[in-house]
């Protein structure tokens, strides 16, 4: 499978319909790379005309802004908007809710206006349009799953249904955690916490959430954010429950169930 960059597409006179914004985790983190590859595979199989920025992509500035470093954020936003506008990007899809939030909500005022969607929304669209065909897959059918709402998808942007709708297409038994949707508990990574040690307390936030996920006795935990994925995987591993409960991104599950 060939993944084209914007530069390559433009050079060959093509205009992709959507830009896949990979994000730093998706680009560099080994676990998150699997999500990126799964999503790229889906796009490829569904015949979506897409491109990535490749080496021209840079951090959106989210962790810097949330940590309080507005200068760093503005520098990154300036550079990214120059590149995105330079390619006349209209539509962006991303597998990271943090990139999604910042591109959708915080770039417009700086001159970056794009239609931005999260990959779970895009997957829902592709399924509804029949571009993704789910085959009967024993891998998922009848298995139990719990979905962890990412704060930046859920409360921040009120996207609760799209990921659940996508999971429904897999014919699994969806078990909600006690704290879900608008009451969903954070994984502990947001607000640049991912990049520092937690403040002192009685428990790690990811352990609190992992325990809640384990309590549902589900075979899988579905995430829609590379950071939530890391936090929950670590928490579940810490409880030595990884044999019973696997954390997967929704894109990884769809990629495996696709024709």
């Amino acid at each position, binding site marked *: 499978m060939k993944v084209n960059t914007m530069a390559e597409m433009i050079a060959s006179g093509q205009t992709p319909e959507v830009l896949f914004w990979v994000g730093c985790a998706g680009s560099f983190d080994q676990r998150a790379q699997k999500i990126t590859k799964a999503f790229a595979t889906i796009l490829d199989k569904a015949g979506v005309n897409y491109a990535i920025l490749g080496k021209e992509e840079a951090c959106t500035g989210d962790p810097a802004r949330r940590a309080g470093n507005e200068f760093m954020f503005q520098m990154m936003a300036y550079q990214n908007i120059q590149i995105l506008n330079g390619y006349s990007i209209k539509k962006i899809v991303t597998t990271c809710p943090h990139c999604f939030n910042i591109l959708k*909500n915080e770039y417009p005022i700086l001159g970056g206006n794009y239609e931005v969607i999260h990959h779970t929304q895009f997957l829902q669209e592709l399924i509804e349009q029949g571009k993704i065909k789910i085959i009967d897959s024993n891998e998922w059918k009848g298995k139990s799953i719990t979905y962890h709402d990412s704060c930046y998808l859920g*409360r921040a942007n009120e996207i609760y249904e799209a990921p659940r709708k996508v999971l429904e297409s897999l014919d699994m038994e969806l078990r909600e955690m006690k704290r879900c949707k608008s009451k969903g508990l*954070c994984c502990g990574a947001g607000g640049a916490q991912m990049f520092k040690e937690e403040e002192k307390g009685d428990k790690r936030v990811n352990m609190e959430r992992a325990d809640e996920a384990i309590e549902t006795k589900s075979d899988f935990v579905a995430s829609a954010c590379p950071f939530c994925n890391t936090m929950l995987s670590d928490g579940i591993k810490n409880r030595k429950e990884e044999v019973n409960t696997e954390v997967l991104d929704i894109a990884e599950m769809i990629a495996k169930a696709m024709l």
Partner: protein
Amino acid sequence: MAIIAQILFIILTATALYLFSKNLLIIRRNILIGKAGFVNDQKTRRWKNVFLLALGQKKMFKKPVVAILHLILYIGFIIINIELLEIMADGILGTHRIFETYFDKIGAGSFYYFIINSFEILAAFVLLACIVFLVRRNILKLKRFMSNDLAGWPRSDANYILIAEIILMCLFLVMNAADTQANFIISSSLQPLLSDINSNTLLKIEHTAWWLHIIGIYIFMNYLPYSKHLHIILAFPNTYYAPLTPKGMMHNMPEVQNEVLYAMQPELAPSGAAAPASFGAKDVMDLSSKNLMDAYSCTECGRCTAACPANITGKLLSPRKIMMATRDRLEEVGKNINKHKNFIPDNKTLLHDYISVEELRACTTCNACVEECPVSISPLDIIMELRRSLVMEESNAPQEWNSMFSNIENNFAPWKFAPDDRDAWTNQA
């Protein structure tokens, strides 16, 4: 004699209203100390929020039982206060139940009875709700009411309000019961208790209850500006001015945006432009007026803190405490201004003296506190403004964050990876 009572009543009422409005104006002035003003676009959507959240108490209904009890208090409070109109008229004119006389005259005496009976039924429900709330706070000891956030005065504040409501409702019922010519639905059941008392004493009881009731209301009114109970007024403007943007959106800092723009494109820089004075918020005057109104609107219910992932896992951060600290500091700044006309620096700031770095560092920006607040308060917005000041004014960040910043700057990612490897995954795809 009657004229003295009338004059006394008028003086009392005028004093109560004067003090109350004076304190409200001070609060208004304090709120307007804020740097940025209020956003007032999309008025229809804003009024909708007022109707749904303040008037309709939509978010309260996430906890239905408490919501119903709270609704009783709220409706009771508003409707029973209609009776104040008659009390005021009687007080000023020296009459007794002037509305009853009026309704009798136009042949609608039963309507008057219907109204007062409704008030009495509500009063009984209010009494009950207050007792349940007192029990929840003091006997059942709900976790969010036991927190250290409320140690001392705030915990008493909550109890004072409930006890005051109970006393006011009792006085209202006693006043009606002691009125021998009246026979209202709830208070009439109290009348057998008063059957041995002669009519002269009954009259005195009625008068005393009437006076204590109105004095109680004036005290309660003047207590509001000092209390967490101020939300009964500020919930309305606070939901009106609540941001209409998605919760995930942080507000932009045009001054920093421009600094970066001028660094990148110096030709755009205006000549002689002064650098901005400071970034983020170190003290209350650096916050927005909406942040400050949030602080006065907070009724310290603790729903935010109960939902906060940092607080749940034992971190120092409590969003409720952020709001209480902001109000405390603002009150202090307000007193400073009362005294000196202008704010004289007192070597204290909201950051550090009221809210510690450790609290700010614990926030995951998950928006759970914002989502929970029934009256659209955002503790998160204050936390973010303080973080901005910490990092941009004091260069105060943990070492890991400084590494993250320099990685973003040099490697375009928060981790130290070679930018050239950003698309390395495509080779294995």
